[in-house]
């Protein structure tokens, strides 16, 4: 794996391509970019037919041990790895520890173990079991075992230090087993940077991890809702300074477009694409504009006033609590709303996804109020297309010095609402 940076944007932000990926070394992944979020190798709600209606999907698929661990025996018997088991073909497989969209209880971590929660409950993993799983999953990349329980407020300094120490110890053990394992030849390990909200610990974790033979870095315990975004950006900036330029940095648990923009500036290369899934689950459709064409009047992806009012109302009612990831954001419209019952426009005018080309808001509204399964399918198609389109626009903006324009475009709706709220308040 090789990261070729083509541009360092002023004020932060790295544009480039990860090349030579996979066992054939043929695949590549553009950064900033995101991985394809899945449940057990399946993009939520989608079958291959519906997934294939989407173009420009990332070449890396994310699966999590929390989904997979309970199927260890099955995979051991199958022998050919998870990718083949899941019917996936031309994709790279990245195996993370947790599912970024599934909250899990804390308090189950010990010096030697971490726990994941699957459909059958908690499964405790020590390094030996963790590595045995990686051997049967046979991913291309995997996240090293980590104590990532420091995202809660008021975590003590002692606990934060412990998480850094444990995570480094896990990494060393993982690497030892990895190097002695034939099955994992050619597989890349991502070291995990911990350190809670303590700057010194973050820096220590980054420095120490960077000394190990890892292919990339996961920035853990900074997930949305657990930390002030400004503080997070500070921490990430400090951490990325310590990390080698030529290795990718994957930020876990952050997905909102505004937060993505801030974290890219702070030096992040990769994200997990769980955000469109969360939007889908609340019956919403992403609609924020990321059009940076020269003529702003031609930017078709604009909310009309009425919708802005609705989104604003949502904000006033709920978005004040950013801790709750299930809350609607200002980047989406809520198709459950009665206003859409006779709205015969596509979700987003000009969007080329299967949903927007074939269906109208009124139909989506009907599918949601009648609890029909197709609602999730169509929304997931659109939200995935929109989100990956946003990352494409971000790279384009970085290549053509238009990041500021993109930021204004993306943040406009959010900021306008904040202003109105302040005026009202």
């Amino acid at each position, binding site marked *: 794996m090789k990261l070729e940076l083509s541009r360092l944007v002023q004020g932060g932000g790295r544009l480039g391509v990860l090349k030579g990926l996979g066992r054939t070394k043929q695949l590549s992944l553009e950064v900033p970019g995101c991985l394809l979020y899945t449940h*057990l190798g399946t*993009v939520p709600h989608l*079958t291959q037919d519906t997934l294939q209606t989407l173009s420009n999907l990332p070449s890396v698929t994310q699966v999590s041990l929390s989904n997979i661990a309970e199927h260890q025996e099955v995979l051991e018997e199958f022998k050919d790895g998870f990718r083949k088991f899941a019917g996936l073909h031309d994709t790279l497989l990245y195996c993370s520890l947790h599912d970024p969209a599934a909250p899990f209880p804390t308090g189950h971590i010990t010096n030697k173990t971490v726990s994941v929660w699957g459909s059958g409950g908690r499964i405790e993993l020590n390094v030996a079991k963790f590595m045995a799983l990686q051997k049967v999953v046979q991913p291309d990349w995997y996240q090293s075992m980590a104590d990532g329980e420091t995202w809660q407020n008021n975590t003590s300094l002692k606990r934060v230090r412990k998480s850094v120490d444990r995570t480094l110890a896990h990494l060393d053990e993982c690497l030892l087993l990895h190097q002695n394992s034939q099955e994992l030849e050619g597989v890349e390990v991502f070291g995990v940077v911990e350190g809670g909200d303590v700057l010194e610990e973050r820096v220590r974790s980054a420095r120490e991890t960077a000394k190990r033979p890892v292919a990339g870095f996961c920035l853990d315990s900074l997930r949305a809702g657990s930390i002030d975004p400004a503080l997070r950006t500070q921490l990430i900036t400090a951490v990325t300074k310590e990390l080698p330029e030529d290795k990718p940095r994957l930020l876990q648990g952050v997905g909102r477009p505004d937060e993505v923009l801030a974290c890219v500036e702070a030096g992040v290369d990769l994200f997990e694409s769980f955000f469109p899934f969360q939007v889908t689950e609340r019956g919403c459709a992403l609609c924020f504009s990321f059009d940076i064409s020269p003529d702003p009047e031609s930017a078709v992806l604009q909310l009309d006033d009425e919708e802005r009012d609705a989104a604003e109302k949502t904000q006033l009612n709920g978005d004040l609590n950013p801790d709750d990831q299930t809350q609607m954001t200002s980047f989406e419209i809520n198709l459950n709303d009665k206003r859409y019952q006779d709205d015969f426009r596509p979700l987003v005018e000009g969007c080329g996804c299967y949903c927007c080309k074939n269906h109208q808001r009124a139909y989506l509204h*009907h*599918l949601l*109020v009648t609890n*029909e399964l*197709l609602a999730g*399918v169509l929304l997931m198609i659109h939200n995935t297309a929109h989100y990956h389109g946003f990352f494409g626009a971000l790279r384009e903006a970085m290549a053509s010095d238009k990041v500021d324009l993109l930021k204004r475009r993306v943040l406009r709706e959010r900021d306008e609402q904040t202003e109105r709220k302040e005026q009202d308040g």
Partner: protein
Amino acid sequence: MAATVERVVAAEASEKQMSAKKVLSAASPLTLRIVAECSVTKARACELILPHSAVSTPVFMPVGTQGTMKGITVDQLDDLGCRICLGNTYHLGMRPGPDLIEKANGLHGFMNWERNLLTDSGGFQMVSLVELSEVTEGGVKFKSPYDGKEILLSPEKSIAIQNSLGSDIMMQLDDVVSSTVTGPRVEEAMHRSIRWLDRCIAANKNPDKQNLFAIIQGGLNVDLRKACLDEMTQRDVPGFAIGGLSGGEEKDDFWRMVTLSTDHLPREKPRYLMGVGYAVDLVVCVALGCDMFDCVYPTRTARFGSALVPWGSLQVKHRQYAKDFQPIDPDCQCPTCKRHSRAYLHALFKSDSAAMHHITIHNIAYQLNLMGSVRQSIVEGRFPDFIRTFMKRLFPSPDQYPGWAVDALASVNVTLE
């Protein structure tokens, strides 16, 4: 031997007759072309030409109750070869309502389905779903489960809604009585269904675009069925449904009512057996002369992890499939079987609803392929052999063949070993 002779027995509107439309009564937008008739049984293979495309019969019509096929996109349904599916008038009339669907250019436009649609009358759901329903000569009275308002579904109202939905085939409102009820109520319902048929015919605003099918009633009583057939076949309707069955009656009664009906239905019009969808029932009732079938079973059972296979069904969620790395049916060519194993689907059921969609796709493919094979065997003059092979595959041994199926098939000259 009519097996290979292609004969056009146009029900009504062929191109030539369109010009004569003014003088004739309503020319219906349906043509039935009998492609082949089995020389042994009453089975036939036809081309049913409907406003949105031709349909090869015998045909199984999947049920998309609320304007959607349970997690499957219209493109997926089309790719599976489906040319006609159902929508339910009761559900769609409630939500989103006929006015909205009319604004969306009918149900075709609303759900973006370019093939044919059949809608039921709404009466059956009302009787089966809504507790507080009362049937009078005016129609079916019920309380809306959404706002508690009392609503009367009259024949005129049912047709008005179906006109708004714009389905290719509409069903008359019939007086549905449980098939296990006996006595004067059955006779009353039969006569009322005939009167309601006349009111439905009169109420149809789009006879040139939407076909209205009559529904034969009469419970399990031979004389009542016969009387209903006599009356209804005198009406100028483009097709007939056999109703009031598949409601928990004895299978011995069921098949006798089916065969009695097809004996008296006109050869040149399609026959639709309502609510039938189990593989054995389909094959037997094709032999008895039915052309069209619908049932929620294949799609509903899919969501519980039950996959239909030539040897019955396979419970994907059952533990025994956790390490079974074959496809659901190694001979099946559906997108699910071409890509996924039983073991993966078993695991996926614990993680994502897409597992249901995979089985739904497989089950629709199974139903449509079954009917395709039935049709081909009729065209090739080997339907009786097909039945014997089919039964052998489905049941472990001949002594497990259901008695009613053996009797029904014997009645059309097919003996099983």
